[in-house]
């Protein structure tokens, strides 16, 4: 904290007097589920306690798809909030290019962010022309298969330890009246689950070829054909899962109605809120238990330019606070995500988080799809996937053809 104030004073733009002025800082985000809200309250609490400023919460429910347009509208409409969430990646790219975001480079250099942010690719996503415009908050990885111990106990079979076992156990679950695979019906969930299966089943190289080089031939090739077959199979497992939201799906695991769910590590927050213990009530298989690798998506905070020195001071203080050790620990424990700092020891981490940290340490990481594709391409993939997952008559071959077509035009 001291460092920040020293920095602010040294920039000479802001006198000590104004730095002490209290500002209301409006923070917009789309964290509204139980675990998420608990996590973001940590930021709010620390900001209110440790600074003279006030956190004005601007939560917008309905997920990023609902919230982002509103945020972008506010920023381009000339009524920016104090700080706003975006995902790691390219969602705010043009806003930064248009010069609408506050440059955090001085703060980052003063605090030495590049020394402790791990993996460093997160900071790269925040960087444009050598300047830093956002604070990475957490790392979320998609590649988890969550399993309900209760469901498998009810069916009288052991909890699977990888995807193949999961597939094999599915009929038994069906017989016991359980839904083998819980899936929310929102497009981003369909697309995310497919992507997880792609990394696990097609392998890292094929995935990279498609995502980084946008290689349509690989996308149309045999490796991906396997993924589509598997997805078609998974589609049958999830046929009776009639929920919209991901946490409703997770809730089916908690109540033992469903066996498994392919979902990111944020699902862990729901298990925690429900008082469940990793390893006892539920277990988690990174990379579907096949290919232990995680992608490093997650959230970052951007600070729109406001032309008000008081608010700017508060913005910098919040940026500094969000990446501080204490805040990182407090936030990520509640959120179920991994901290962006390599220099903290999460002793309080539970089983699943520990697994994630291990994999992170080994460097078996991939970028998130939000970093590899534009929102536009992501959207097209989501349209394809949500249709594929929900329409049993949509054949794997047709879907793959469409997929390759989108990849060939991807940006």
């Amino acid at each position, binding site marked *: 904290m001291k460092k920040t104030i020293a920095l602010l004073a040294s920039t000479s733009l802001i006198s000590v007097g104004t730095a002490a002025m209290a500002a209301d800082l409006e923070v917009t985000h789309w964290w509204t589920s139980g675990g998420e809200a608990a996590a973001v309250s940590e930021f709010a609490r620390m900001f209110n306690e440790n600074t003279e400023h006030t956190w004005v919460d601007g939560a917008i429910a309905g997920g990023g798809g609902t919230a982002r347009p509103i945020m972008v509208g506010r920023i381009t409409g000339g009524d920016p909030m104090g700080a706003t969430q975006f995902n790691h990646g390219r969602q705010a790219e043009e806003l930064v290019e248009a010069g609408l975001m506050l440059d955090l480079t001085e703060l980052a250099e003063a605090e030495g962010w590049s020394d402790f942010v791990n993996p460093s690719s997160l900071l790269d996503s925040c960087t444009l022309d050598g300047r830093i415009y956002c604070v990475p908050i957490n790392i979320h990885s998609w590649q988890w298969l969550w399993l309900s111990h209760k469901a498998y106990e009810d069916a009288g079979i052991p909890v699977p330890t990888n995807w193949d076992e999961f597939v094999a156990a599915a009929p038994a679950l069906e017989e016991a009246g359980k839904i083998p695979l819980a899936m929310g019906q929102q497009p981003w969930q369909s697309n995310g689950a497919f992507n997880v299966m792609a990394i696990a089943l097609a392998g890292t190289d094929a995935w990279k070829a498609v995502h980084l080089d946008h290689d349509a031939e690989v996308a149309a090739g045999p490796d991906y054909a396997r993924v589509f077959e598997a997805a078609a199979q998974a589609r049958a497992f999830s046929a009776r899962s009639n929920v919209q939201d991901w946490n409703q799906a997770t809730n089916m695991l908690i109540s033992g109605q469903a066996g498994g769910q392919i979902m990111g590590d944020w699902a862990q927050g729901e298990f925690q809120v429900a008082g469940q213990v990793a390893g006892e009530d539920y277990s988690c298989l990174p990379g579907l238990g096949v290919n232990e690798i995680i992608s490093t998506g997650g959230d970052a905070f951007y600070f729109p330019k406001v032309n008000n020195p008081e608010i700017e001071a508060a913005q910098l203080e919040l940026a500094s606070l969000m990446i501080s050790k204490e805040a990182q620990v407090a936030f990520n424990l509640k959120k179920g995500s991994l901290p962006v700092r390599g220099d903290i020891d999460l002793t309080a981490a539970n089983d699943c988080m520990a697994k994630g940290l291990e994999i992170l340490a080994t460097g078996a990481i991939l970028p998130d799809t939000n970093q590899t594709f534009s929102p536009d391409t992501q959207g097209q993939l989501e349209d394809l996937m949500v*249709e594929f997952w929900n*329409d049993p008559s949509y054949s794997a071959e047709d879907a793959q053809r469409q997929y390759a077509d989108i990849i060939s035009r991807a940006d």
Partner: protein
Amino acid sequence: MSSARRVRDGARPPIRLLRNLSSKIAAIPMVLVGLGVFVGGTLWTVLHSFTDSRLLPRLNWVGLDQYERLWSTRRWLVSIENLAVYGIVSLVLTMCLGFFLAALLDRKIRYEDTFRTIFLYPFALSFIVTGLVWQWILNPEFGIQAIIRGLGFQNFNFDPLYNPDLVIIGLLIAGLWQGTGLIMVIMLAGLRGIDEDIWKATRVDGIPIWKTYIIVIIPMMKPVFVTALVLVTSGIVKLYDLVVAMTAGGPGIASEVPAKYVYDTLFTRQNLGQGFAASTMMLVTVAIILIPWAYMQFREKRQ
């Protein structure tokens, strides 16, 4: 003759622009909204549909690329088809049901006020609320399907919101529930405007009531139907909230509609160019329907 006008005593010279100045001042909001928002906004949108604008609008021309992509996008095609089906069915049913209810209420019944309020109140509720409630009632796990199965009909199947083939029916049930009340009131108002003597005449002539409605009354209510038609059609084109609240476009993309494609593309997908191309197509569709109609109206007036 008029150019050589003599100067007239006691009269001020007419300046075209200043005549009825107050009325022209009062028309300023209309002019601003009409030109500034509707025409200006539309032109701006059409213009940018020929660009590759992503998150922020920019004038980087790409010709018809956005339109080519639009018409090769499956979701757009599904959306158009859905809107056409929903639109036609909803238009027909809203008009028929609205008229039917109005005719029932017009039969000099008891408790007319009560029934009318019952049919009209859903109009007071937003599509968001409508969508939520019907989503719940149609939920197969505890809604109508569950109740009827609970009564012993184990094979009863009614889960429109989870069946891609039936989802439009689900939307229709909710949409009609919300929208027919207003049309009913308009029709009722129209029926009340019909001369009592017409009824007396048809009674003397021995024409059955239903036939009177179809042959005599409906043709007399043409202006009423036009008003109702404008209201219903303008609502259909904008169909968005209901879908979002009820199905979010699902299952899969089975209940996607054009307005939702526009919104998603513009804002979530951050592809303004594509979104503007889609909105331009919506406008073109509206224009194709409206312009011949407007032209006919205009010609009728002339004669």
